[in-house]
């Protein structure tokens, strides 16, 4: 855990710093790889910017919609810069919606667009897990294994580091092999999603559960499994449709 990076007189919040580095590295890789996915990087940039703006506005509106009474007589709070007044799920859904509207207006193939996002996502995931390690969030269960780390009053699994290490594999594969030849568009994204949900499902078992469990079953594992199921279904459907197309053409 290292919440602050001290550079001389400057103190930087490490989690935010790591996330920014991850985003910048991801944007660089995205621009570099965009051509190989046959997509204009300017379209991706535009879609992502619009998506981000809509995500922030949506997150705030969604939060207000959840607690309208708290804002009565205090409307100025709506414009507060405090990020705690954001609903991440609502913002994410609205942001994704905005991105897809932009993409459909540009007549860009959705699957090709998703493929082109994988270098950015592949870079953001390790950064996200490392930032959680820096902040001390998402800590592991108590262990007596020799590589356990002292955190929050006990020796624990360095679960954020496990996740960060596992998340490097999809990134390396994308940078080395993507786009994968002889596979239909969307396969790079779907394989990335399958791998990501797979390792999260695996490693979440070592994460300290707070209140996120139902009858002993961890919610994050269940969500990862459902995500794995849906991405596997989509992947199989993409391959099937490509095979049918190939057969028809033959």
């Amino acid at each position, binding site marked *: 855990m290292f919440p602050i990076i001290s550079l001389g007189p400057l103190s930087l919040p490490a989690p935010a710093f790591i996330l920014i580095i991850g985003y910048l590295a991801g944007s660089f890789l995205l621009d570099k790889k965009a051509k190989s996915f046959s997509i204009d990087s300017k379209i991706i940039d535009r879609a992502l910017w619009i998506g981000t703006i809509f995500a922030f506005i949506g997150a705030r509106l969604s939060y207000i919609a959840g607690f309208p009474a708290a804002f009565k007589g205090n409307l*100025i709070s709506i414009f507060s810069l405090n990020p705690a007044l954001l609903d991440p799920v609502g913002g994410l859904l609205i942001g994704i919606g905005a991105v897809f509207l932009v993409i459909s207006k540009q007549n860009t193939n959705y699957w090709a667009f998703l493929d082109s996002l994988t270098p950015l996502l592949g870079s953001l995931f390790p950064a996200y897990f490392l930032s959680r390690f820096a902040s001390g969030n998402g800590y592991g269960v108590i262990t007596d294994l020799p590589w356990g780390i002292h955190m929050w009053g006990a020796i624990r699994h360095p679960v954020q580091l496990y996740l960060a290490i596992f998340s490097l594999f999809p990134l390396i594969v994308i940078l080395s092999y993507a786009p994968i030849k002889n596979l239909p568009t969307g396969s790079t994204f779907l394989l990335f999603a399958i791998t990501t949900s797979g390792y999260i499902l695996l490693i979440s078992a070592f994460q300290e559960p707070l209140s996120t469990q139902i009858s002993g079953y961890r919610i994050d*594992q269940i969500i990862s499994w459902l995500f794995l199921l849906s991405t596997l279904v989509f*992947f199989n459907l993409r391959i099937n449709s490509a095979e049918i197309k190939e057969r028809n053409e033959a």
Partner: protein
Amino acid sequence: MKTYLIKLRIPISVTLLIAGLAWIWFSRIPVESSPATPIKAAQVGFLAPDFTLNSLESQDIGLEYIKGKPIILNFWASWCPPCKAEMPAFQETFQEYGESDLQIIAINATNQDSLTEVTQFIKEYGITFPIPLDLTGTVSADYQVHSLPTTFFIDKSGVIKEILIGGPIPLSLLRIQASQLLAE
């Protein structure tokens, strides 16, 4: 190899899903299990570390005196602009929830402030909730306060539910957090 994997994609997918379900079942937490001793740490989900500090009026203020009550615990200093900006919202919340069990405590990081400034600040902002003085910085260190203001939301069983680093915290957010703490 690739063609082989594609041909076997359905059995591979089914195996992965079954293995996933088996892993979820295998790694489930036994319902009867509970932590042997609750750990005290400045992190969400842990018991809030105990403290006892003196106020300007030399009155003892600490968690042990308000056991069983939800607490909003703020760390501040008089020189910190976001602390100044959020203090009126804390005072308003204190007045709004005055008749409930909610406790608001704002620990002054006195080791990096001056008593004269603190006294003037309390007068200027008309603060009526308890202001303990952390003269040595020990409590700030126990709560791992790296930047001011930092606010902890503690439920009636003494567990930290939320930590907000930085500010200013708007009144609406304090109202939401207060209502959630009281509803638990």
